[in-house]
């Protein structure tokens, strides 16, 4: 390798680099001659980390899913089979749990999209510079507080003697007992992940040139028509990008179901957790863990078609 030899020439006989002050700095010359080397050196540590730590652990997880556990000794038996997947595909319990997880993730995503769009539009197109900054802070501020603190705050609002029922009763309405139900999970998830929808939507809307809106107005489009036919299509990739966050974050959560869910609120994550942490059934947990991976893979393929990755 020419570059390598070149480097060697610059070394003193003891193998140490020469003191500075020579012709060119050795490495810079090397990078200049071999432009790809810079990329390799820059990318090597993160790539090595990614492949060794991240991908390797995922592969191990996948492999384990095809093993099983001996009911007598609770030891993992490395016999290849599809039993875990068969159970997941045929057992109603897991259909119910997967259905609930995906359904709620979708519902939260739609809710957040509906809530976030007008907010982001106002931030990007209507608000003054100053208001914009304030709104930005308002969106990001909750992210500074602990996730748990925010979920517990919702418990205080939604429980039987909580703020919600107190308010309803003080204006003469019957109490809404939504504490510890799937409705409560929907409300809390929608609240918690809303900033992750607002920010990409805002970024996409900000990129829509005002001149397009003016042009639409010049051509006789009213405000709503302009939003529907001009703004919305251009902002869609941002909304889809945001939906990746809200959907995947809800899909993978298992803390909110424990805290605000009622009886019958288990998510995929809860079942994975109880199989891993309690019975040590790693193979089954791994098999169930592949379900969200598959769902997200499908989701991301769809999102790519809608141009979400350009908006990120």
């Amino acid at each position: 390798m020419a570059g390598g030899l070149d480097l060697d020439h610059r070394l003193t006989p003891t193998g140490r680099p020469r003191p500075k002050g020579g012709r060119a700095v050795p490495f810079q010359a090397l990078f200049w001659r071999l432009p790809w080397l810079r990329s390799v050196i820059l990318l090597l540590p993160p790539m090595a980390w990614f492949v060794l730590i991240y991908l390797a652990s995922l592969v191990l997880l996948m492999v384990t899913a095809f093993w099983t556990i001996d009911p007598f000794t609770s030891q993992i038996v490395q016999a290849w089979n599809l039993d875990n997947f068969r159970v997941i595909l045929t057992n109603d319990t897991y259909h119910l749990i997967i259905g609930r997880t995906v359904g709620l993730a979708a519902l939260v995503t739609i809710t957040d999209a509906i809530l976030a769009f007008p907010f982001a539009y106002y931030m990007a197109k209507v608000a003054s510079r100053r208001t914009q900054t304030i709104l930005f802070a308002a969106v990001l501020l909750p992210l500074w507080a602990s996730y748990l603190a925010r979920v517990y705050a919702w418990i205080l609002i939604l429980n039987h003697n909580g703020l919600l029922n107190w308010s309803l009763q003080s204006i003469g309405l019957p109490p809404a007992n939504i504490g510890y139900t799937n409705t409560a999970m929907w409300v809390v998830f929608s609240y918690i992940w809303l900033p992750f929808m607002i920010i990409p939507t805002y970024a996409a809307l900000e990129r829509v040139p005002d001149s397009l809106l003016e042009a639409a107005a010049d051509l006789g489009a009213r405000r709503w028509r302009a939003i529907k036919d001009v703004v919305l299509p251009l902002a869609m990739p941002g909304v889809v990008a945001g939906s990746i966050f809200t959907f995947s974050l809800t899909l993978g959560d298992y803390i909110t179901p424990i805290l605000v869910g009622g009886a019958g609120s288990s998510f995929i994550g809860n079942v994975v957790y109880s199989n891993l942490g309690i019975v040590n059934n790693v193979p089954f947990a791994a098999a169930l863990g592949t379900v969200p991976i598959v769902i997200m893979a499908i989701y991301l393929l769809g999102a790519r078609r809608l141009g979400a990755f350009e908006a990120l």
Partner: protein
Amino acid sequence: MSSAVFGPAAWLRRGCLAAAALLAVTACGSTAAPTGSTRAQPPTAGMTPQSTIGAGEGQLNLVLWDGYADKSWVDPFTAATGCKVSQKPAGSSDEMVALMKDGGAGQYDMVSASGDADLRLIYSGDVKPMNTSLIPDWSNFQTYFQAPGFNTINGIHYGISLQWGPNTLLYNTKKFANKPTSWSVLYDPANKGLITVPDNAIQIADAALYLSKTTPSLKITDPYELTQTQFDAAVKLLKDQRPLIKKYWTLPTDEISLFQNGDVQVGAAWPYQTIQLKLAGAPVDETIPPTEGATGWADTWMLATKAPHPNCAYLWTKWVSTPNVQAKQALSFGETPVNTKACGEMEALSPGSCAQYHADAPGSYFDTIKFWKTPIATCDDGSNNCIPYLQWQAAWTSITA
């Protein structure tokens, strides 16, 4: 109670323990015999325990539940014995067993193992027999805890019992003017939407315990050893219970707020919740044990086979068995001491706590508590007809789904 040491973290781990206690691959045995249980001889049975406690080695390495070696009783111990205590808290019974591999590998001296992990540790030869005559307070222990089946085998003691706790029936006194005396209130459709039980597959044993009294035709003798028919009956009972449940609780603090906020009126609990709720002025009381009996858990200090500091280990066990330390730990952790003399100390630290925690319970009390052990495929009669814990967990998922 001196609740300063108390934190959700401690309870998180107890929640874990509740679940993890069922993990082990253990043999089953009778529980109340004075010589412990009768079963195959463990590998270290032949090792003769030391007959005297020599000078401390200056160091003691413990694998333990977080909070089991609190400063308030470790510092005086170190001052008195010169044994410096280093702690390795474990998150689950599994982790404890893993840490104690190869007899503690010459690194760890003792482990504060729970009922289930005990038999795994004993049968893998990781812990060795202990000499109870070196622990003066041992004779003051509740008779049951001098030689419980989960740490004493064929009359050989593989550890010294520490603390335990029962599962109780907690209820709102406004809703229940008459004290409920049976677990049946948890299965009664009249209480729909007002019930909470732990989110833990161990509940199947609670259901089985209830069925053992209410449906004698099932012939359930041990709620941890269920045949398919018995198991199915217990699971069906819990599936019928499911629509009545407001929430399956994970942390004791969750249950406390459920009761405080009026979301539930009755549930399965630990003495800790009752005490905390009463302190907060909530109108609650507990039934312990209900007519059908109750389940419970218990921890033991065990000595590593390759313990590098055995004298400090014995000095430590001696120390934590004394009434004062037993009382302090009980109050800081919300559990019950095994030393009957700890009662007075508990009263001194927190009046009324002895009775609250049932530290003064008579021997007959322990006959009504079925202490946790791991459900395994091999039943007591040697047949392989029992349902192992793996299936318990799967069934629990389908119940709570």
